[in-house]
């Protein structure tokens, strides 16, 4: 049973999404139950998988699809490969998916109407795609899974308001360029090595000493460009802010924490497993230097753009772009602290972005106002929501008990170790800007004046009139927020354990 965990946790949401499609229109309530069961079950399975992998001596295990026999020289079948890093991210994806399904219970009828069951079908497919990306060990399958996640997310975004369709269209164009570049890079690798298995490609490159080959360099650049487009690394970020802020709120709360982070993990996989650290960080190449500068630009620009926004969700999306800069820079520092810090930041960023997006969505829905003045005097009216928002905000700034502090700590340590002072300065600078952004909001929420907000909402109105009443936040929205903010603290407090797991797995691949 435990040998089949990787495939089981993919199959559960896959069949769940099929059932949701079969349930058809006007059946959102049943689809919600199906999604809860499949995602809850998969979350449990991924927890089991984490426990299993932590107990393994070798650090990872492989699952051969369809039971292809093992061959000594080269891989014929398709593999799933699971190690501690993959398990942690799969667990994060499943938990965010599960909590988000709870959150979407009252939002789906209000925002997508009769297409509710298709929403749940798409969201489960998206989770299958994301987990497949994380676990697959085949470069071409990775492309197909990236496209599965992208296609579902285009559709999920386009379900939003009038502008969502246009932002989704731009996302289609950018996303297709990115995925095609990735596919092209894989094509070059295939021409050169004749295999698609990530480990086999690496071994072949190693044994034939193909590092100097121009096609390999071109392949690396193409794959990096493709992955950067998908993760919205700064000059390629154009599609993200509109897509995430005009999407339906429960799509935004799901995709903002996960999509970019999973693509950062793909970048780590490509850099350390597919090409190997000797090639990527080779002292002759100027790439590390260049890309760290690019990430510095991304961090600074993302923070400034966030500061300039007056729209809550837009501001948060620009913060995501700055965070992507943290992670890319951290990985390219080329030392263990930087890599582990970047990986730890994937987890903590997933938790805090989820928390902030949920809190912001609740505020926008309940006050009916999407600009920052929505927060005026909210601590008195929505204390629980605001506490959740505060924890998320403090974690973004990086204050000690929260996980945001520890990821920044390790990233800065890595930056100092590598002597990349510009990266350290950019991190501190962005923390300062985050502090300005969030304390501005906290100040409004504590001392702001009440401007034209209707106060009372009766119990019957709760689900029918979302905008206008701010006192009554349904439990289905508060639970995910509370769990999210708790997980920020838990990831922060458990940083020692998580960090030791991460470094052990990274040491294994770095040799």
């Amino acid at each position, binding site marked *: 049973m435990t040998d089949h965990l990787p495939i089981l946790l993919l199959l559960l949401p896959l069949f769940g999404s099929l059932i949701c499609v079969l349930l058809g229109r006007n059946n959102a309530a049943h689809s919600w139950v199906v999604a809860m069961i499949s995602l809850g079950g998969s979350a449990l399975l991924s927890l089991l998988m984490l426990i299993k992998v932590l107990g393994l001596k070798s650090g990872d295990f492989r699952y051969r699809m369809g039971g292809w026999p093992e061959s000594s020289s080269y891989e014929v079948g398709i593999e799933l490969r699971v190690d501690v890093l993959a398990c942690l991210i799969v667990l994060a994806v499943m938990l965010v998916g599960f909590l988000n399904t709870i959150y979407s219970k009252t939002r789906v009828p209000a925002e997508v109407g009769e297409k509710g069951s298709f929403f749940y079908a798409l969201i489960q497919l998206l989770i299958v795609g994301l987990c497949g990306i994380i676990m697959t060990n085949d470069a071409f399958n990775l492309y197909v899974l990236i496209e599965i996640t992208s296609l579902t997310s285009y559709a999920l975004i386009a379900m939003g308001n009038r502008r969502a*369709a246009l932002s989704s269209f731009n996302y289609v164009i950018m996303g297709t*360029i990115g995925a095609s570049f990735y596919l092209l890079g894989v094509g070059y690798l295939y021409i050169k090595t004749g295999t698609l298995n990530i480990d086999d490609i690496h071994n072949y490159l190693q044994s034939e000493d193909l590092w100097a080959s121009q096609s390999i360099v071109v392949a690396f650049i193409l794959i990096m460009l493709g992955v950067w487009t998908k993760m919205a690394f700064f000059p390629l970020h154009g599609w993200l*802010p509109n897509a995430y802020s005009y999407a339906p709120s429960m799509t935004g709360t799901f995709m903002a924490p996960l999509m970019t982070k999973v693509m950062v993990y793909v970048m780590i996989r490509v850099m350390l497993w597919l090409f190997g650290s000797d090639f990527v960080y080779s002292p002759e190449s100027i790439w590390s230097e260049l890309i760290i500068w690019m990430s510095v630009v991304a961090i600074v620009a993302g923070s400034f753009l966030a500061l300039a926004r007056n*729209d809550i969700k837009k501001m948060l999306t620009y913060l995501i772009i700055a965070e992507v800069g943290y992670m890319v820079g951290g990985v390219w520092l080329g030392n263990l602290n930087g890599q582990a810090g970047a990986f730890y930041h994937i987890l903590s960023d997933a938790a805090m972005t989820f928390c902030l997006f949920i809190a912001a969505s609740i505020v926008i829905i309940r006050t009916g106002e999407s600009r920052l003045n929505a927060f005026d005097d909210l601590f008195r009216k929505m204390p629980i929501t605001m506490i959740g928002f505060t924890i998320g905000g403090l974690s973004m700034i990086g204050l000690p008990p929260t996980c945001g502090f520890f990821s920044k700590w390790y990233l800065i340590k890595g930056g100092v170790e590598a002597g990349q002072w510009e990266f350290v300065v950019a991190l501190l600078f962005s923390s300062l800007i985050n502090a300005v952004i969030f304390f501005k909001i906290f100040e409004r929420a504590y001392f702001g004046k009440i401007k034209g907000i209707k106060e009372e909402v009766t119990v019957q109105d709760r689900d029918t009139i979302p905008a206008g009443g701010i006192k009554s936040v349904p439990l289905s929205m508060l639970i995910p927020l509370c769990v999210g903010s708790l997980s920020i603290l838990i990831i922060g407090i458990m940083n020692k354990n998580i960090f030791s797991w991460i470094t052990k797995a990274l040491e294994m691949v770095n040799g």
Partner: protein
Amino acid sequence: MDIIIASFIEEVIVPKFNYWIYVILMMIGLFAMITKNNLIKKLIGMAIFQTAIILLYVSVGVKSEANIPIISHHGHQEHVEHAQDENHSPKPEVSTDDKSEKGDHHTIDKDKFANPLPHVLMLTAIVVGVSTLGLALAISQKVHGSFGTLEEDEILDQLKPGGHD
């Protein structure tokens, strides 16, 4: 001058003919995706762009004077299996070893058969491309429904007064 051009064609263009074609097609597609104003024209560019990459893969699988990789063995079970091995084998030298162990009367010459793997991969890529195109067309229909036009500048004009970004 003529000699230089002729030698350029002979040494640079002809041997890498397939790569030139794919790069040119890809650039046409990319150009259309980025510069065109009409959303449908952008999508046509996207289709050209994806097709260019499919052409690259397909051209890689071709060998001169090679046949399609279907091996008829008059119902010899062992050889059918062997043929499958050959088809999936990514590295030719491995399958040659394989063959010398097993090969009795019908030895399979790997140079006689085209590599089918890139073609199989492209079947999947074509499916992905078609679904992307279909989805994008559906989305542009939705855009047309809410803005009444498919020209990007007209849509942006409509968004100007209300939009703050």
